[in-house]
């Protein structure tokens, strides 16, 4: 990049949150160029969120703590001016689409910042209209926030941040709570703003496969190492966190590292790398249906379900078996969560029958089902209340009338060192595993997980995958409802694809994935070979 104008600069900043010993940022220096799309990434706890909040003064104004060094944003000093004053220079969009709305109606929400700035009404109307237009959400203007989907909410939040016409828009993991399609909608909107208006965008994200191709530069932050900044392909080649495509590129020595399937396909065509159909190793053989007893399956027979005058599931037949890991996939509103709740007896089918490990959910009490099945909700924080990890385990065991124990369980989930720690002090990934441990402590024969990888980085995901694989190998029934195709490719033996309340595809993960365009992993899209759907597969093929 040539000598473009610097819009924001951070010089030797060290910052410590109040009441902590280790600084969240140490001697940090960064220049942001005008009009660039900067992707911020790194392992959890490396200070990404802290960095993003430096630009508008939320750090240190909102959080307190000690700060040294100099920050300049568009010629202003956020530390001196504070977040309120900086709001016309820096717009900020947060992770949780639900917890950043101050108004009920979309139009009011967008006007909120203008009202605070005391902008007169005629100008306000114009600005609100522009913001709606820029995000193509004119159709949403009169909607209530509670009726919007996650993706729509995030676009409204971006419009609300844009309305004061800031120089920079900063987004803190804006898509981590969204399904792939909604995430794409949000990112497309951002790319358009960046290209059409020359808006500077700073965005942090865990799922690099979604964004890396849009970024001009990438910043990688590690906990105890200096940050790495540069062109995305260059940075990816140096860091441990990389999307599957880049990992394969590294394995096969492709240079420059491909960021899109299109770029990577060229390498595939050039190289002689090829694997025959015989390469499918450890073919996760599915158990023959007839052999499995009802005590080891969850079966749905002609299940109909609807609420609020809307049919969610119609005439569903399905059998989930123990000993294999099943991923339930499908778009938002396809009926995934309803199906989990039906299996757990939290919802009752309108017609048909569900047999969960021998209990007919229509008649079985919740107590009875709770003894058979464990359930990990989307937000692990719904479960966690005790002041230590061990306390969570003890609680479940007491509730099931079991003697206190759990050392082995914690060890198998890699949580033994946190035994006495307060779950609230742990990272999202660790909390997710504590919730899993808390559920497993009841010795249930099956575990159902709803969207387990929300907000996890690659390393945390690896840890979760390992834990769930071990459970599957123990012969437990593992069922996860997820959007995360990479997770499903890595973990699942079997994929069930739901669409509009019906099973669209059901079969071995390899077959379903290599046959689908949308619900397909990056590697599967690249090779279009059922033998190659994960980085591991490629690795194995090379070593063969």
């Amino acid at each position, binding site marked *: 990049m040539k000598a473009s104008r610097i819009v924001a600069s951070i010089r030797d900043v060290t910052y410590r949150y109040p009441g902590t010993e280790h600084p969240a940022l140490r001697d940090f220096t960064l220049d942001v160029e005008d009009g660039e799309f900067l992707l911020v990434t790194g392992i959890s706890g490396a200070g990404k969120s802290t960095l993003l909040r430096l630009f508008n003064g939320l750090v240190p104004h909102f959080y307190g703590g000690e700060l040294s060094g100099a920050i300049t944003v568009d010629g202003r000093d956020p530390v001196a001016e504070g977040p309120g004053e900086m709001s016309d220079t820096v717009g900020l969009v947060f992770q949780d689409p639900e917890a950043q709305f101050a108004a009920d109606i979309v139009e009011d929400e967008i006007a909120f910042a203008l009202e605070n700035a005391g902008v007169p009404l005629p100008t306000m109307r114009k600005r609100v209209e522009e913001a709606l237009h820029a995000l193509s959400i004119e159709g949403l203007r009169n909607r209530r926030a509670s009726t919007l989907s996650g993706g729509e909410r995030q676009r409204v939040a971006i419009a609300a941040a844009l309305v004061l016409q800031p120089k920079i828009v900063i987004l803190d993991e804006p898509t981590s709570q969204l399904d792939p399609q909604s995430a794409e909608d949000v990112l497309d909107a951002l790319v358009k703003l960046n290209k059409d208006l020359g808006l500077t965008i700073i965005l942090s994200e865990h799922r690099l496969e979604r964004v890396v191709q849009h970024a001009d530069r990438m910043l990688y932050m590690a906990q105890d190492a200096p940050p790495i900044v540069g062109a995305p392909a260059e940075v990816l080649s140096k860091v441990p966190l990389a999307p599957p495509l880049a990992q394969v590129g590294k394995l096969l020595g492709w240079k420059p590292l491909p960021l899109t399937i299109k770029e990577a396909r060229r390498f595939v065509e050039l190289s002689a790398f090829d694997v025959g159909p015989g390469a499918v190793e450890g073919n996760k053989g599915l158990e023959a249906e007839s052999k499995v007893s009802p005590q080891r399956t969850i079966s749905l027979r002609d299940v109909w379900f609807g609420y609020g005058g809307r049919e969610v599931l119609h005439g569903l037949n399905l059998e989930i078996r123990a000993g294999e890991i099943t991923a339930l996939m499908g778009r938002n509103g396809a009926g995934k969560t309803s199906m989990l709740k039906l299996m757990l007896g939290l919802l009752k089918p309108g017609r048909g029958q569900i047999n969960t490990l021998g209990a007919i959910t229509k008649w079985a009490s919740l107590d009875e089902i709770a003894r058979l099945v464990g359930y990990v909700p989307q937000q692990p924080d*719904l479960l966690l209340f005790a002041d230590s990890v061990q306390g969570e385990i003890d609680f479940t065991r007491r509730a099931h009338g079991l003697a206190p124990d759990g050392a082995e369980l914690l060890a198998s989930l890699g949580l033994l060192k946190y035994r006495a720690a307060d779950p609230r002090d742990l990272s999202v990934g660790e909390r997710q595993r504590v919730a899993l441990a808390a559920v497993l402590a009841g010795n249930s024969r099956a575990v159902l997980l709803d969207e387990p990888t929300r907000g996890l980085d690659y390393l945390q995901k690896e840890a979760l995958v390992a834990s769930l694989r071990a459970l599957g190998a123990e012969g437990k029934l593992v069922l996860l409802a997820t959007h995360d195709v990479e997770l499903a490719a890595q973990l699942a033996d079997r994929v069930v694809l739901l669409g509009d309340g019906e099973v669209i595809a059901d079969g071995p993960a390899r077959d379903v994935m290599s046959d689908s365009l949308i619900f397909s992993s990056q590697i599967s899209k690249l090779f279009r070979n059922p033998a190659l759907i994960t980085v591991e597969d490629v690795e194995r093929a090379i070593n063969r």
Partner: protein
Amino acid sequence: MWNKGAAEFNVGSWLLWLISAMLGALLTRNPFYLLLVTVAGLLVKSGFNSSAGQRGAPGGTVSNEDPTRRGFGLFMRAVLLLLLVVTLFKGLSIHIGQTALFTLPEQIPVIGGPVTLEGLSFAAIDALSIMAVLAVFAAFSTWADYYALLRSTPAALHQAGLITSIAITFVPQTVVRFAEIREAQALRGHRVRRISDLIPLIVPLLSGGMERSMNLAEAMEARGFSRRSMDSHRIAPVAVQAGLALGLGLALTGGALFALLPSAPWAAWLCITAGILSIVLTMWVVGRESKRSRYRRGVWRERDTVLSLVSLGIMAILITYKLIAPATLLYDPLARLRIYMPPFNPLLGIALLAIAAPPFIRMGWPGQNRQKKSEAAKEVEGYTR
């Protein structure tokens, strides 16, 4: 997309409707009238549904289930259940009246003794009047735009109104979250048997609520909620406090004067008026200093005029009857100690039925705003980048 989402009516006309419907529920104690109010309230609550359907997302990815509504529904169901229990208990514990139905053993405290039809019907009317209030309130809140409502507070109270509006949106979210926590913990084997068993439900609820509030506070801060220009009033905060204290002091003194100087009520009234004036004046001065501006001046459409007139009509009829013939509004089997036919006045009946007017008025004036909207849109298109 011509329909205004939640704001089917202007805040002002909608408030007038609330007052007239509430008068209907509170001034009458007659099963016919109360039933009419309840039915009218429920009609209004569901009456906009034909248009609500159009608010569904065009993309089709939005779940039709609105958690806010679901939370409210849960709350209403709990209230109704409570109401049923209380009514039954009350009906059984009133032993007055001629028509004894059966007798409960005297050993049972409170409810032991003869159970009379008069007592039961008295309790039932009580329940009905609470139902009527609930139905009216449910209808009001379903279609009220709380945000607009709270933002129509005077400028000096703007901050307070805004914070309250945010707090209100928190309530249903909290109810939904609580239900989710209960389900998840129940599947973990948790049962509530003692008070201490509530901890696994309360702690996640509170910590989640805290986190949410922090996120929201941060998001509001980042959009200039507490900009410095807001605080730089020319008047010192001490002056504002003094003005409010003086006003409150005067008003309270006035109240006390009623008791101390019963012979001179004018002195008390004078004091109270001066106090209120002082408070209003202080607020006005503070409001003038506020640099905040407001986005939406309420749109007053033709249908708002119609609704206001209807509401005022209802109020006039109700108040007239209350003043000249209060007995027509009431039915009191306990006072007369016998069951009799409740009176029914057709004019009052029509007036109370008119409470159900909003959805019909709304249907009669559909495309009213469409033209204006498209003109406004054209106008701004010129400015768009």
